[in-house]
């Protein structure tokens, strides 16, 4: 006599096997249909929150996002994006856009985003970014908003640029500083350290030969940190291609991750020599255009958000920021997630964004 539930064979529930087979066959059919759809269509439209261009100068773009709240906080926000990547990671699609979140919460948001530097911009130096582009954007934000104070948010290397700016212009007008996954002790970025080992990596020869560092080189150095992950993510995509939400999310993040920017040659030379080799930001010896940039000079309130599983900026590289900065109102939050999921996607919506809002709202009046 057959028991009510089919007997297990080596731990498998035999009764569920026909159901699983049927489900897998359906998914296989869906995969074929959706696979064709995937190839023949483009991904979702990204970075579509309405905005106005305030200023464009070579690689520098300053946007102002149109406020959507009836009442906004007094202090505007300037987001400084990393120079290796596009700013639309913070403005993916409605419902998953950090910018949209800030606008709905009543903030006035500006973004300093970067275009690919052109060959003739290969001579842009660190001082062009820190002493020219950022101050120029701050002035534009002040003029446009009519406010003197500005909150600066820097993501990854945008955080480094914001720190350098804040160290040199310690008297203001930066009122608050928020850094996302910002490295200051470059010894902590062990693989990047090894890739740029001064005994074998001739940065002068590279920059003198090719000018701007091509995006393919930047992308492959990121991908080398987790060499199996691209192949594994493609396997995951194929398994989940029947799932529209998964595919949408995959396409958004994949497009952003591969949309890497070249780096201006002289700027790359300075990053390699001053930061990767001599670790000057950590050792308080950094100068930009002859001006000392010591983060102990920064006294404004600071929030530093770091990710528990960040493979690009490991915690050892980011940790000393809060110890070394001169502010008394300072906080570090360690959140679950990686370098990108800290700031975008479902993890960020649950963790970082509400935390940032609760920290910033009382400092924005």
């Amino acid at each position, binding site marked *: 006599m057959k028991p009510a539930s089919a007997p297990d064979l080596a*731990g*498998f*529930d035999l009764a*569920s096997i026909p159901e*699983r087979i049927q489900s*897998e066959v359906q998914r296989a059919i869906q995969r074929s249909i959706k696979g064709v759809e995937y190839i023949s269509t483009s991904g979702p439209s990204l970075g579509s929150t309405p905005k*106005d*261009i*305030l*200023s*464009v*100068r*070579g690689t520098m773009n300053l946007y102002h996002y149109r*406020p959507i*709240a*009836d*009442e*906004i*906080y*007094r202090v505007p926000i300037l987001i400084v994006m990393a120079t290796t990547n596009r700013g639309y990671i913070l403005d993916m699609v409605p419902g998953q856009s950090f910018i949209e979140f800030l606008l709905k919460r*009543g903030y*006035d948001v500006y973004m300093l985003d970067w275009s690919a530097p*052109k*060959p*003739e911009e290969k001579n842009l130096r660190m001082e062009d970014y820190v002493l020219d582009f950022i101050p120029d954007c701050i002035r534009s934000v002040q*003029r*446009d*908003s009519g*406010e003197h104070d500005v909150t600066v948010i820097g993501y990854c290397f945008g955080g480094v640029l914001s720190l350098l700016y804040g160290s040199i212009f310690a008297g203001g007008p930066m009122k608050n500083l928020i850094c996302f996954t910002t490295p200051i002790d470059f010894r902590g970025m*062990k*693989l990047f350290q*090894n*890739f740029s*080992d001064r*005994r*074998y*990596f*001739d940065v002068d*020869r*590279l920059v003198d*030969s*090719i000018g701007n560092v091509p995006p393919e080189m930047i992308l492959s150095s990121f991908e*080398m*940190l*987790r*060499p*199996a*992950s691209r*192949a*594994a993510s493609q*396997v*995951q995509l194929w*398994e989940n291609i029947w799932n529209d939400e998964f595919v949408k999310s995959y396409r958004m993040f994949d497009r952003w991750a591969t949309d890497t920017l070249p780096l201006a040659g002289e700027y790359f030379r300075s990053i390699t020599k001053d930061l990767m080799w001599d670790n000057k930001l950590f050792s308080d010896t950094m100068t930009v255009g002859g001006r000392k940039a010591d983060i102990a000079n920064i006294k404004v309130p600071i929030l530093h958000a770091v990710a528990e599983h960040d493979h690009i900026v490991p915690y050892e590289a980011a940790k000393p920021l809060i110890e070394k900065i001169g502010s008394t109102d300072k906080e570090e939050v360690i959140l679950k997630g990686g370098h990108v999921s800290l700031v975008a996607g479902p993890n960020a919506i649950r963790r970082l964004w*509400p935390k940032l*809002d*609760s920290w910033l*709202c*009382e400092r*924005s*009046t």
Partner: protein
Amino acid sequence: MADKSNDPVALWQNMIGEMEKGFNAFANQAMGSPEFSKVVNQVGGATAGAQKQLSELMEKYLLSMNLPSRSQMVGMAERLQSIEGQLNEIKAMLHQMRGASASASSGYAPRPPRTKRPPPASGEPK
């Protein structure tokens, strides 16, 4: 509900995840060695050198074919960039003028007032 530990699809997905982690860890260990840095940078340096020589050769070739050289194209790009820059300056000025006239005109919706206060402590997100 099926036990995940006995589900072949879940087992397969788990295996892929473990393989990815294992390979990444192994590769990271290998890439952390000075030998790896030496080899990669030797290859990279040679490639950059070859690229430079090739571009010089191409420049001569284009000249002999009476085609614009890279430096001439870069010169044109610079001029275009300068024109773009001037157009953007005009756009930014127009934007500022529009903002100024909008605030002066009562018919145009002004920007929201900067009077927002933080929510009371009890209403703050946890």
